[in-house]
């Protein structure tokens, strides 16, 4: 890979007015002019659906693809807790500046100031837009919008719709998208898996897809391509993500030249239902909002097998309240997760496996009443009971951290464009705003900011400088070649006819990534991962078994095509974690910690975004984007 200097293209000027000033300099197209352009959007979750609707409103012709049967099925639908916005409705001193600062600090000073400020600035518009679409956010008795608190902050700025905020926001974006489908400005391709990007003269001009119903491989051309394909937590096999969430779109883009930033920055969410057996197919999140009223504790004594109710108050260790008196149970996710691991490693874990801690609502129920708790968290309590067969109104929940979100993703500049011209990346699929740790309720905010308010402007600006001539160019050599290439890959996988089920290989990969590139990492483990992942790759290509035909619906083939890319990504994650000889946010390198077991950041040597270039013959190539902090002072994070 050729060396080049990464340019984030942040505009000059005052932080507070930068985005508004910059927007005025961007090129604009009238709806008549926009109508000449074709835009491909891969993914119709919050980010993709909101971008598709908005770009269609501006006159562009949108071709949107998803492997789901409907946009409403995207993983975004599962988000529970809420969405942040600096509205300051509670008059508790919130402001754009404060949301900006909390997000930068929450990310442990590994994100770009300009992007994060813009996100905080746009947060209020998102709520306005969603309310206008009919999103039924929770309200107070007076009829105004209600808020609650999330981890890592001391103000109440999270808007919510019971425990189904993602559902309601996605249905809002889906309705906006449906309105444009009705207006014939959006053509939606359901059950289509994007398997490759096509570039022409170095610019992204189309994609290759597989129709999941009949296996047909098709080329689609367009003037610009936007990836809104979500996160890759499923590289760990078990995660809170929907079963089909995957990295393929991003990975194919990476192999075609898009840099992959901070791949090892993954978020382990502290409150999930613990793993119960070997058949477990996925993990279930219990929203962070529960930490508003739930208290985390373990027995003080090691290997204590008594029932929770038999352990008297004075023999309980409310360790978060003890270690972090200022934030208590509401410390950020990375901190809460690491501390849970620590007490369990120390033998204080609870439940059959000893790999769980309690989340206890007794005090809140006593003080605020059962109805209050039911109103706020009813569906979460029901879900917990359904899965575990235990009643959380009566006995404390058992929880343990699980992989939840990936801060890493395709490197993008201020315009959300990757290093491939004409290829944009929005929502969880890019790396942009959360640094080394994402604060709760800010992924929905980022996805919608990217989709409704940022990419429509920057994509239009890009297109205004391009001639609209890629509506129908699939007969061009680049497309024909890419189709052949994809067909060859599939043929090869179908012909392995080995003995292993795809999930078996995936589980094995997941175990390595969880053990070595999970909640705590060290040099030896990472080197070990780098040497063992290629063996899994070999196993996959020699011994995986795909029954049936690739010309029908074939769910095993779909999984195999995703797993092959996860395996390659896993290796890159290990390289990234090994390169970063510091601890920051969710990236905890055991060698780099303070005496109090807090993450020890190293701003002198690692104040950069690690953006990796693909190298087909070996070690990936590292490009560094130095992060500049002109408006906030770098500090050691403290939640004490």
């Amino acid at each position, binding site marked *: 890979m050729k060396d080049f200097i990464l340019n984030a293209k942040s505009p000059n000027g005052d932080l507070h007015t930068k985005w508004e000033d910059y927007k005025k300099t961007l090129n604009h197209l009238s709806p008549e002019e926009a109508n000449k352009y074709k835009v491909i959007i891969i993914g119709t979750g919050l980010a993709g659906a909101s971008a598709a609707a908005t770009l269609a409103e501006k006159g562009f012709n949108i071709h949107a693809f998803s492997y789901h049967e409907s946009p409403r099925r995207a993983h975004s639908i599962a988000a529970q807790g809420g969405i942040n916005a600096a509205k300051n409705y509670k008059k508790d001193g919130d402001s754009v500046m404060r949301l900006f600062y909390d997000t930068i600090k929450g990310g442990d000073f590994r994100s770009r100031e300009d992007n994060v400020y813009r996100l905080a600035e746009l947060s209020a518009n998102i709520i306005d837009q969603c309310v206008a679409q009919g999103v039924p956010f929770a309200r107070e008795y007076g009829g105004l919008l209600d808020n609650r608190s999330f981890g890592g902050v001391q103000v109440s700025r999270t808007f919510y719709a019971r425990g189904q905020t993602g559902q309601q926001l996605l249905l809002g974006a889906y*309705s906006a998208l449906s309105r444009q489908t009705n207006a014939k400005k959006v053509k939606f391709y359901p059950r289509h898996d994007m398997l490759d990007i096509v570039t022409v003269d170095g610019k992204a001009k189309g994609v290759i897809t597989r129709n999941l119903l009949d296996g047909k491989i098709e080329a689609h051309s367009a003037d610009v391509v936007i990836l809104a394909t979500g996160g890759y937590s499923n590289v760990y096999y078990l995660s809170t993500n929907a079963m089909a969430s995957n990295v393929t779109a991003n990975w194919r883009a990476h192999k075609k030249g898009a840099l992959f930033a901070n791949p090892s920055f993954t978020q382990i969410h502290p409150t999930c239902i613990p793993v119960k057996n070997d058949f477990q197919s996925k993990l279930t999140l219990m929203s962070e909002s529960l930490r508003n009223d739930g208290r985390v504790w373990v027995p003080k004594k090691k290997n204590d097998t008594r029932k929770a109710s038999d352990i008297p108050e004075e023999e309980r260790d409310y360790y978060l309240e003890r270690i972090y008196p200022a934030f208590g149970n509401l410390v950020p996710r990375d901190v809460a997760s690491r501390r849970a691991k620590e007490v369990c490693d120390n033998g204080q874990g609870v439940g059959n496996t000893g790999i769980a801690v309690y989340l206890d609502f007794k005090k809140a129920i006593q003080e605020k009443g059962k109805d209050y708790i039911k109103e706020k968290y009813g569906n979460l309590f029901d879900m917990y009971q359904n899965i575990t067969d235990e009643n959380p109104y009566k006995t404390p929940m058992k929880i343990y951290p699980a992989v939840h979100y990936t801060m890493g993703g395709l490197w993008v500049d201020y315009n959300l464009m990757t290093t491939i011209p004409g290829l944009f990346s929005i929502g969880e699929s890019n790396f942009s705003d959360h640094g080394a740790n994402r604060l709760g309720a800010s992924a929905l905010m980022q996805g919608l900011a990217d989709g409704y308010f940022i990419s429509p402007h920057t994509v239009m600006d890009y297109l205004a400088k391009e001639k609209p001539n890629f509506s129908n160019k699939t007969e061009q050599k680049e497309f024909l070649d890419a189709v052949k290439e994809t067909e060859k890959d599939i043929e090869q996988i179908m012909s392995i006819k080995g003995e292993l089920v795809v999930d078996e290989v995936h589980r094995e990969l997941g175990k390595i990534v969880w053990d070595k590139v999970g909640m705590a990492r060290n040099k030896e483990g990472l080197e070990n991962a780098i040497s063992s992942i290629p063996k899994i790759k070999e196993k996959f290509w020699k011994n995986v078994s795909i029954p049936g035909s690739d010309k029908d619906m074939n769910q095993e083939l779909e999984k195999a095509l995703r797993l092959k890319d996860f395996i390659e990504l896993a290796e890159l994650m290990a390289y990234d974690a090994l390169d970063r000889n510091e601890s920051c946010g969710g990236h905890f390198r055991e060698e780099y910690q303070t005496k109090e077991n807090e993450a020890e950041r190293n701003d002198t040597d690692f104040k950069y975004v690690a953006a990796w270039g693909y190298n087909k013959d070996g070690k990936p190539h590292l490009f560094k984007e130095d992060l500049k902090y002109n408006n906030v002072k770098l500090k050691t994070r403290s939640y004490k």
Partner: protein
Amino acid sequence: MNINLKIWRQKSNKTEGKLHKYRLENVDPNISFLEMLDILNNKLIKEQQDPVAFDHDCREGICGSCGFMINGRPHGPQKATTVCQLHMRSFNDEDDILLEPFRAKSFGVIKDLSVDRQSFDRIISSAGFVSVNTGEAGEANQIPIDKSNADEAFLSAACIGCGACVAACKNSSAMLFTSAKVSHLALLPQGEKEKKERVNKMVATMDAEGFGACTNTGACSAECPKEIGQTNIARLNREFIKAQASNLFEKK
């Protein structure tokens, strides 16, 4: 526990399907129903057989992907629960369990237990939205909304679009699904302006898609995993009559 499964196997919408028998032994009662199917599929693949196709994704009861008939009931025996949230402890040792796809004219079988529910998307895209462009919205707290209305709108908006209501109905009516969206938006001031047009278009699309008429049996609501109430249907009917009446009035 041991179970005896009978599963509808159909290669595609172009071929005929039939029931196949499978026996699974030593099933852990604490696994989910779909994990049980994962185990069956694992076994089938090991034996070089085609695994059973079924739709699923979130496995948290919210995406609406999963859904098929278990012993004649959409999503199975447990009230207010999607298939993915159902656990094997709801069954007994040596139970016979029959799995079939949702059956309705407007939901074609794709393969095995997977059906095509895109007709639902077409109902929504006909008018299930508020016409507001990005950037045109006013301040969110400008219009206070009575908490009870907002809460009721939320309950209607909680529909996951799974299609169980259609499968439960002897007429294959999509009335519960459609009425949930009509109600959600009719209950909010934001949806007020397009109320008449919305109900007219959505009902027309529902009919055009081949869904049957609603005869108020209540089967839909009883089987709905999100407990979408029949009051939604009553509201749709009211809105529809109002819209028709005002159409007549306007024509005069």
